[in-house]
């Protein structure tokens, strides 16, 4: 008779085990996010395009890259953000590359109110020794200055034709980064991920906006402003702030 008690208990336990709420709450979908580089509002063409700079010079962009740390979705109900990636290196360095590159992440289905990321290498990763990583990992791609200055958060490299003589003989190299410059960018958007009508997000960065705005252009004719490297980050702050402030998010 005592076994008669065990039977309903077993059925109850079995029924609880079949509860699929947990499964639903952790279901994930592929969530692609695109990154587009522009120059003056048009898709960036590495090396192949001549770009007019506000001071009258022409530029050929050779390299544009930046790190993205802690790419996160902000849940609608509050709570901890959902991390899509701890570190990404977004880079354009070849004429064969499209201006838009897409990375696909795994994200839980649900409602969200925003997207957030850090421009640069987050302080915890910036404290790491690059030799902790494999040689082909993004934090080990020769983007490390050294023990005191650590990772290069972003690079803009170009050849300029200052005299408009058709010769791009003035090299410009802006290598930026330090813990003090690390900047968090947040885009407030309400959206739902369910795998059916997910939004298409494109994070846009404009090289020209990093170098110049309507009132002030980085003086690329000044030899003191043609190179920013390593420990000279004090003069990079203005350039960095403009770079970090100009990110925009396109939603379709």
């Amino acid at each position, binding site marked *: 008779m005592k076994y008669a008690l065990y039977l309903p208990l077993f059925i109850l336990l079995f029924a609880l085990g079949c509860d699929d709420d947990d499964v639903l709450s952790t279901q994930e979908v592929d969530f692609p996010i695109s990154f587009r580089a522009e120059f003056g509002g048009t898709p960036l063409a*590495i*090396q*192949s395009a001549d770009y007019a700079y506000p001071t009258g010079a022409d530029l*050929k962009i*050779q*390299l544009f890259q930046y790190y993205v740390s802690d790419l996160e979705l902000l849940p609608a109900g509050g709570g901890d953000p959902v991390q899509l990636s701890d570190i990404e290196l977004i880079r354009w*360095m*070849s*004429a*064969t590359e499209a201006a838009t590159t897409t990375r696909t992440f795994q994200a839980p289905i649900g409602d969200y109110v925003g997207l957030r990321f850090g421009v640069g290498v987050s302080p915890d990763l910036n404290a790491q020794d*690059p*030799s*902790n*990583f*494999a*040689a*082909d*990992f993004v934090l*080990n*791609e*020769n983007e*490390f*200055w*050294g023990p*005191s*200055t650590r990772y290069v958060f972003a690079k803009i*490299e*170009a*050849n300029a034709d200052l005299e408009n003589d058709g*010769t*791009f*003989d003035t*090299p*410009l*190299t802006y*290598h930026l980064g330090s813990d003090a410059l690390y900047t968090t960018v947040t885009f407030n958007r309400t959206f739902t991920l369910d795998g059916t009508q997910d939004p298409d997000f494109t994070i846009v960065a404009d090289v020209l906006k990093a170098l110049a705005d309507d009132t002030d252009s980085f003086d690329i004719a000044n*030899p*003191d*402003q*043609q*190179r920013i*490297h*390593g*420990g*000279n980050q004090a*003069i990079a702050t203005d350039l960095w702030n403009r770079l970090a402030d100009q990110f925009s998010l396109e939603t379709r």
Partner: protein
Amino acid sequence: MPRFLLLCGLFTLFLAASCEPDAPICENCPEEETDAPITGPANPTAYTLEVPSYLPRPIVDETNPLTVEGIELGRRLFYDRIMGRDSAFSCADCHKQELAFTDGLPKAVGVSGRTGRRSAMSIVNMAFNPNGFNWDGRDGKLWEQAVHPVEDMLEMDEDWEAVLIRLRRSRDYPQRFRAAFGIGRTSEITQELAVKAIAQFEMTIIAADSHFDRVVYRNTEFFTEEEQLGADSLFFIEDVPVGALHPGCGHCHNAPTFGDNRFRNNGLDNVSSLEDFEDIGFGAVSGSRFDNGKFRTPTLRNIALTAPYMHDGRFNTLEEVLDHYASGGHGVENEDPNITGFPLSERQKTALLAFLRSLTDESLPTDPRFSSPF
């Protein structure tokens, strides 16, 4: 009629001559069939490539896992002239251990003294290269790279089928292939297995015990004053004064690997258009004219052993290399913007050279792990 008979006779003679058996592919090899069963051990032992903690973790090629037997087989194939035309040329003929696996020549010299198109690259620290192989990056994997030198008429100039017949008929190699890859018949000795074994050996050639390493990472030695000046003030780029023109070698050759393996036009050629490079390098691989004249940025480890320099060996000495970089590029539109030119006093040049020489792993040229097994 006599004329017809004469023609018939000549034709018969011609047929007979063409039926003459070919010269043996391998004079010393037994005339055996090339699909014989192989016996012996067939359980490869997994090998973990250990590198010092101050180097990055090696890049693992999941299509070619390292094994003790595979590495040993690869070492033999690397040094064995059975791989070249008429069994007379080996990989090691262009990659000499005592020269950090280069050949000391401006351009590689292959079978019959034929001059190649480019300098023989050092094959040291390949385990840290994420960007394809060769000067132009045409091969994505190290073992894919090993295919071409065998059949290149300017290098080893041999037909892979002939190489495979020699390997299959060998008294030694079938057992070694079985030990490395678990195969059961000689016909299973393939080009892919041969180059994978060679690549396994090459992956183990690590140079990481230079004076620089002992100063900076192991803390067992000290820089000389000259080396210190070369390192802090010239090579690395942490504290460059505002606006200063500076060697800045570290932009592309940063420690600890001292070469990022990316493709750059480093200002060698003064061409009037991107189509005018004598050797377009990476452009032939990418298909973009904007990549013409770009070549790999190799490691500077052991640079004192690997003269002459650049993809075409145009500079005989490191002094010439420094003079080139100090003079800047030529304003060609796809030159790397880190090529700026810079002032370099004799004292600074001496210091920079002293630092570059500190990157030599003195044990590499005689390390028995990398030496000929024959």
